[in-house]
């Protein structure tokens, strides 16, 4: 009976010793997991493993055998000559080294743990103890893609930029085009793949992130032609975006038939149009006039998005510079022909005071 009891006590003590040893082996790994220090291989061997609560002599604790000389893990990490515990700590620290990603001048670091990755450290050290001196032991890594993808999505939130389109408005009777901004979109699948590869191959060189350029459709350069008509000054200016191209004298509506103010666009373009009397008092006895000299529309008609109003040539050059029309914008015939060839359906037309 007493022999059995003392045997049980001995067993309990040796178990306690083993647990203590295991704990001691485990402790450096916590520091390594933080991944903040940059040193790698030369951590000191752990202190001799003596337990505190010894009630019996500790003869059964296995003396750590050192790893054969020259053995490496994961290609680079020399663990030969280290105790398994020291090697474990070293490998953990080695693996915990953060991955860095780089975009432009910004470099970000992320630990494998944050990426949800883990290395089979114990397995590697176990093998290291039994391989021939100078051999290399691979370090297997579990790096689930969803964890990496989650991190890459946070990168995308940080780096992605939506493109901003240029917008056209009028200030002091001049077109103003807001500056466009090119957007960018992180190539997420490429980033996931590169980070995954970096974890698997134990490379910690900065990973360059790639983005796609998102070009706005409307830019200062592409906003194109803009027509601004000053009703009071009887002038028509053609701009290319904000840049003035040409200005013409025009005739606009008389006070009884004012040219409408506002933002319009060219909706139709016709060469050599017929003139038809509009449904208006002043034209009630008029007859249609075929194309040719004397046609009130000249040779070109650019209808704008205001009913029955347009920019056209006139056979009456003397009217240019005055507010005498029935609402339309008259130009000299060669001017109207020139303008006709510049503008397109959809070209904005601002009519201001």
């Amino acid at each position, binding site marked *: 009976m007493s022999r059995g009891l003392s045997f049980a006590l001995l067993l309990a003590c040796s178990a306690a010793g083993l647990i203590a040893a295991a704990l001691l082996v485990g402790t450096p790994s916590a520091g390594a997991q933080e991944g903040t220090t940059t040193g790698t291989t030369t951590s000191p061997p752990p202190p001799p493993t003596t337990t505190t609560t010894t009630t019996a002599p500790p003869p059964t604790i296995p003396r750590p055998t050192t790893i054969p000389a020259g053995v490496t893990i994961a290609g680079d990490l020399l663990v030969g000559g280290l105790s398994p515990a020291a090697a474990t700590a070293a490998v953990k620290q080695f693996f915990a080294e953060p991955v860095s990603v780089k975009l432009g001048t910004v470099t970000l670091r992320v630990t494998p743990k944050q990426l949800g990755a883990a290395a089979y450290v114990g397995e590697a050290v176990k093998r290291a103890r039994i391989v021939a001196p100078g051999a290399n032991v691979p370090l297997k890594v579990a790096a689930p893609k969803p964890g990496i993808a989650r991190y890459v999505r946070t990168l995308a939130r940080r780096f992605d930029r939506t493109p901003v389109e240029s917008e056209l408005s009028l200030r002091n009777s001049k077109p103003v085009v807001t500056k466009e901004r090119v957007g960018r979109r992180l190539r997420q699948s490429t980033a996931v793949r590169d980070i995954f590869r970096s974890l698997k191959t134990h490379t910690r060189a900065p990973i360059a992130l790639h983005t796609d350029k998102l070009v706005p459709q409307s830019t200062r350069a592409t906003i194109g032609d803009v027509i601004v008509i000053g009703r009071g000054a009887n002038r028509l200016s053609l701009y290319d975006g904000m840049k003035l191209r040409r200005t013409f004298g025009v005739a606009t509506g008389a006070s009884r038939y004012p040219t409408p103010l506002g933002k319009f666009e060219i*909706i*139709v373009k*016709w*060469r050599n*149009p*017929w003139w*038809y*009397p509009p449904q208006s008092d002043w034209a009630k006895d008029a*007859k*249609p006039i*075929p194309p040719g000299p004397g046609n009130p529309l000249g040779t070109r008609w650019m*209808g704008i998005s205001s009913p029955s109003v347009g920019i056209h040539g006139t056979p009456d050059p003397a009217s240019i510079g005055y507010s005498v029309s029935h609402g339309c914008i008259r130009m000299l015939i060669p001017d109207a022909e020139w303008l006709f060839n510049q503008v397109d*359906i*959809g070209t904005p037309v601002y009519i201001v005071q």
Partner: protein
Amino acid sequence: MKLLRGDGPLIRVGHRGAAMLAPENTLRSFDAALAHGVDAIEFDVVAPADGPLLLGHSLAELPEQRATLDEALEFLAGRDVAAHVDLKLTTRLDEVASALERHGLIGRAVVSSFHRRSLQAVAGHPARVPIGFTYPEDRYGVSNRRGMKPAIRLGTLALRQALAARIPAMIARAGADALMLQHAVVSRATVVRAHAAGVAVWAWTVDDPAELRRLDAIGVDAVISNDPRIFSAVATLPP
């Protein structure tokens, strides 16, 4: 629909709505045509790679304010006007016919194309939509191109002579209810021969009231114009 004018007045058709007055192939253009009085509205239909059939002269020329075929037909169904659908597609033809049927427009619609097989596909649909064969095909829009006018005129005058003789054969091959002919090639002999076969003659695209008057006088059934104002203007021209 009634494709022949019989003893009645010329059938007035707005080209792509009223292309002279508003952006073509849009509902706005339809409104502009109706405001000036038309009996039918002609418009083009294209088939995008996916999505509903759209109004447009080609996929590259879709108007800014796009309308689907369904929207256009719904618009026309609610108004006292006929639909002249010009096919700018050679696929999904059954969709065109069934859309006309769905909107109750079979009785006042005509479908035209220069592509004989497309027309036959439409004609083969149980809805029995009337069909019009377009001639000549102006695939490259040369008739609108500057500098081509004199050549076109000579060519069309020659065609005008030759066309009348070919009318019976053309009708037999196309199996059409109407011939949609470029206005310049239409002569009185052409109209007489077509009518003898019970086939209507529609002339496109006429923006000159004097030409409209000529076509009216030789008995053309319908005239398609960018500018429906010519229909009322022609009455005011000196004889």
